[in-house]
């Protein structure tokens, strides 16, 4: 498989291959039983059975000279649980728990900025887009607090989750949410 086909968020070959020496990587990745089972069932649902999905606990990938090699072709599919969940999300109404047991690889390069969001749920290209997303999350959060919205099973209040994460790193601070810029307009 060519390295360009690796579908890992933030994995950008030109950014990583910046030296004169060719990049070489070797990875051993262990898969939990529930992730293997979910990947298999998602593949079945999407009819992705190009070949029988393996149930290996530990897989190895070797990347050298712009090619990624695995022990067997089918092993690549075991890495695809998260991508399968993304595809299924389009067809499911109960999509909220699809991602509970499957993960992927995220890569944050040295070129990251405040809007280097890797999560495909957010389409963030600049700071304004980031503000827009945060404002929407805050709007949802406020309505949940006012009991206008009740969380469905598996649904989360992203603003609250983000604030919890933020406070783990900055215990004395909290996210305020959308605030009007500049002086208030006088009536």
């Amino acid at each position, binding site marked *: 498989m060519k390295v360009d086909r690796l579908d890992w968020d933030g994995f950008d070959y030109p950014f990583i291959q910046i030296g004169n020496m060719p990049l070489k990587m070797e990875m051993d990745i262990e898969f939990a039983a529930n992730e293997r089972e979910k990947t298999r069932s998602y593949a079945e649902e999407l009819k992705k059975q190009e070949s029988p999905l393996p149930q290996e606990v530990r897989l190895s990938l070797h990347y050298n000279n712009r090619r990624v090699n695995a022990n067997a072709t089918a092993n690549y599919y075991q890495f695809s649980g998260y991508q399968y969940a993304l595809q299924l999300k389009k067809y499911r109404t109960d999509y909220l728990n699809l991602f509970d047991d499957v993960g992927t690889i*995220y*890569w944050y390069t040295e070129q990251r900025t*405040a809007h280097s*969001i890797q*999560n495909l749920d957010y389409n963030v290209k600049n700071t304004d887009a980031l503000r827009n997303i945060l404002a929407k999350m805050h709007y949802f959060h406020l309505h949940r607090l006012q009991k206008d919205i009740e969380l469905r099973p598996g649904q989360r209040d992203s603003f609250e989750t983000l604030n919890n994460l933020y406070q*783990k*790193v900055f215990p004395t601070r909290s996210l305020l949410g959308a605030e009007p810029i500049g002086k208030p307009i006088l009536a």
Partner: protein
Amino acid sequence: MSAANGLFSILLDLVNINNSIIIIDEIELHLHPALLRDFLKVLPNLGNNNQFIITSHSPYVLRELPKENILIAKDGKVQPINVFTKGRDVSSIIEELFGIPRRTPEALQKIEAFYAAITQQQLDIAKQLLNEMETEWGTLDEGVVRAQMYYEDLLNDMEDEIHQ
């Protein structure tokens, strides 16, 4: 947000990241050492069942991690390290792991000249070098404090000899 530019995108992603491998290049970028320390402490608890692989050239990162969790890339090879790291002072880590002396060559030369003057009982030269060190590095610098003690000892010894 500017103080934590490189951090915020990761935090926002972690709202939805579980069971994943998260690779962060040069984790110390944009972060003050104190914030870096706080971030590293909470990192394993962010998200659910995530594994973090980080790269770094910072001794401030290394001192937060046990040596068993660190691999070093050297001469095209990735290998474990033998140097203790967790909880140690950054100067020792810089010296023992990065192979960089704690002080600049000029500073080392000055310290060497000071102790040569002490050994040869050249009080004036020692005093001059001590003054220079105090001016450049401050009176609380570990090397300056030690040099002051040696200078005071020499001064007392010489005064004792005169009285005898």
